[in-house]
């Protein structure tokens, strides 16, 4: 029997939980050569800021054990070009779009959201992912998501710009002592849900040249190597919500998903949605394949709805 793969985030129901991860799928056209991006639960766009950005110099990447580092530096066309060229294209192919936005200051996030909301193709947008895992120019370049107050401020300002019914996700970094406190702040400030996790701060040194490998010195670590950290973050936040420490919101899991089995791992930890990032570089069909595999796996577990598996590992602990 076919499993009902649909999932709901606030007012929006998606046909399935599988999405691309921001920055790992560009804005759609490239992957559409391999599979129909409208078949995914949602397409998550590369984080866009107000102005066009060149990003950093190169090398921008280093391969690591079961993963990679990147220091793209949020290269992008700026929100105006995005809503004029990228969003209409995604709409034209029937994609449901989760738009990832960022700003150098809390105010810039809100400005970006405002332009987005005012755009013609906004009706294909099923949500906004607020990438607070980027440096806060006003606060010594400290990443917003490292601080509950800064995180809450950004979320509240973006919330004001978005229509009530548009889901908003705060994307968190795992590079914090206590991710639950950041999650709490984001939810209290109006996040419909949380996306976890962004990359871990890492670094590779070129041992021939004896200097940092990346032009940007440090970079973000992603790929299967970090999956255990993603599972743990989802687990901790889900546990906190189950304990009633703050309001229960849906989570989107991201970090090291390469197979349907990996996706199920994040779902069992508490994720309602799943994003496929670095694995796409290994296999351009990965998002679609993960969906197929996940569906088969859910079926083999005998569930009627994928949502029955969300957070299930919390109910199945064996205390010997």
């Amino acid at each position: 029997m076919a499993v009902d793969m649909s999932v709901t985030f606030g007012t929006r129901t998606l046909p399935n939980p599988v999405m691309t991860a921001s920055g790992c799928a560009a804005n759609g056209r490239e992957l559409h050569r391999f599979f129909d991006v409208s078949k995914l639960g949602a397409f998550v766009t590369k984080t866009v800021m107000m102005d066009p950005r060149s990003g950093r110099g190169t090398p921008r990447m280093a391969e690591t054990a079961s993963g990679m580092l990147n220091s793209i530096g949020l290269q992008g066309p700026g929100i105006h070009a995005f809503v004029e060229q990228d969003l209409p294209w995604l709409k034209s192919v029937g994609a449901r779009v989760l738009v990832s936005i960022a700003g150098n200051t809390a105010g810039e996030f809100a400005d970006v959201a405002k332009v987005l909301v005012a755009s013609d193709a906004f009706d294909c947008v099923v949500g906004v992912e607020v990438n607070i895992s980027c440096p806060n120019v006003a606060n010594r370049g400290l990443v917003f998501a490292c601080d509950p107050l800064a995180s809450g401020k950004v979320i509240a300002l973006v919330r004001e710009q978005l229509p009530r019914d548009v889901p908003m996700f705060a994307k968190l970094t795992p590079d914090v002592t206590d991710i639950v406190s950041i999650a709490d702040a984001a939810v209290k400030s109006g996040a419909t849900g949380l996306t976890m996790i962004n990359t871990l701060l890492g670094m590779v040194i070129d041992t021939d040249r004896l200097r940092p490998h990346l032009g940007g010195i440090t970079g973000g670590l992603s790929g299967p190597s970090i999956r255990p950290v993603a599972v743990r973050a989802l687990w901790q936040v889900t546990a906190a919500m189950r304990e009633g420490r703050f309001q229960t919101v849906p989570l989107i899991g991201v970090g090291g998903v390469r197979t349907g089995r990996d996706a199920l791992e994040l779902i069992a930890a508490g994720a309602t949605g799943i994003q496929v990032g670095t694995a796409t570089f290994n296999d351009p069909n990965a998002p679609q394949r993960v969906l197929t595999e996940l569906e088969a796996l859910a079926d083999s577990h005998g569930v009627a709805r994928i949502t029955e598996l969300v957070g299930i590992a919390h109910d199945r602990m064996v205390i010997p």
Partner: protein
Amino acid sequence: MSRAEQSGVVQVQGEVIATRRVGAYHHLTIVAPGVAELARPGQFAALSVGGLTTGNLLRRSFSIHKVSPSGTYGGTLDLVIAAKGAGTEWLTSLRAHDAVDVVAPLGRAFPLPTEPVPCVLVGGGYGSAPLFWLADVLRERGCTVEMVLGAASEDRLFGVVEARRSADGVTVTTDDGSAGVKGWVSDVLPEVFTRTGAPVAYACGPMGMLQSVTRVASEHGAVAQVAVEEAMACGVGVCMTCVMPVRDKLGVTKMVRSCVEGPVFRGDRIRWEAFHDGVCGVPEDAVGAPKVGGH
């Protein structure tokens, strides 16, 4: 029309059918149905490495040496690979019948002249791999082809014999003089441009060489089409790791992806001065370049 025909690229589970050493390189022939019909000279293939247990997730990119649409085994793809790090070591240790996942063809091919003109083809090391196929295509169109192959030493030259078949003239250089003229390709290029009067050069090889080919070409009023080699995480245009500063038609510099907008660029559009000892900065006048004090 199928998605592959529309998009011009396929992902296939390939099968190695032949692998042989050629000097310092390994020449692999891979059954990869669907690639040959789509590929043109200058495009590349991205191969996954390490098999099921792999800890090396990123694909490795290689210029397509040649393709043949059908044969005993179905369409094949030939690559010339230098063992360098973990991924190329793995690829060059494959044996006949081993499986390898292939995404190809990728990137923009060498643009062909509309008129039958003399062309200069310059290959550095394994960079010559895509040039023989290109030479054949050019000669089919009535172009004459002059080839210059350079490498550090004789074992790092690829295809000297093939060149004599595919080209109207061949010059070989090695840094150590172990074969041909001792020196760099840029030492012999002025004479070649002068002699042939070629209005276009095609080059593939290390960045330093591509820069000098571009310089010598423009000194002789020729346009250089160069195939670059930037580290690529995805090869298909989604990661933004493979960028370099390139001027567009209007002279505006952008950080463009060499995997989809390249690997072939007009040499005179590349901002060579931004490259320095393995790193490349963002020119100050590039679109969205960091402002002083910030981003």
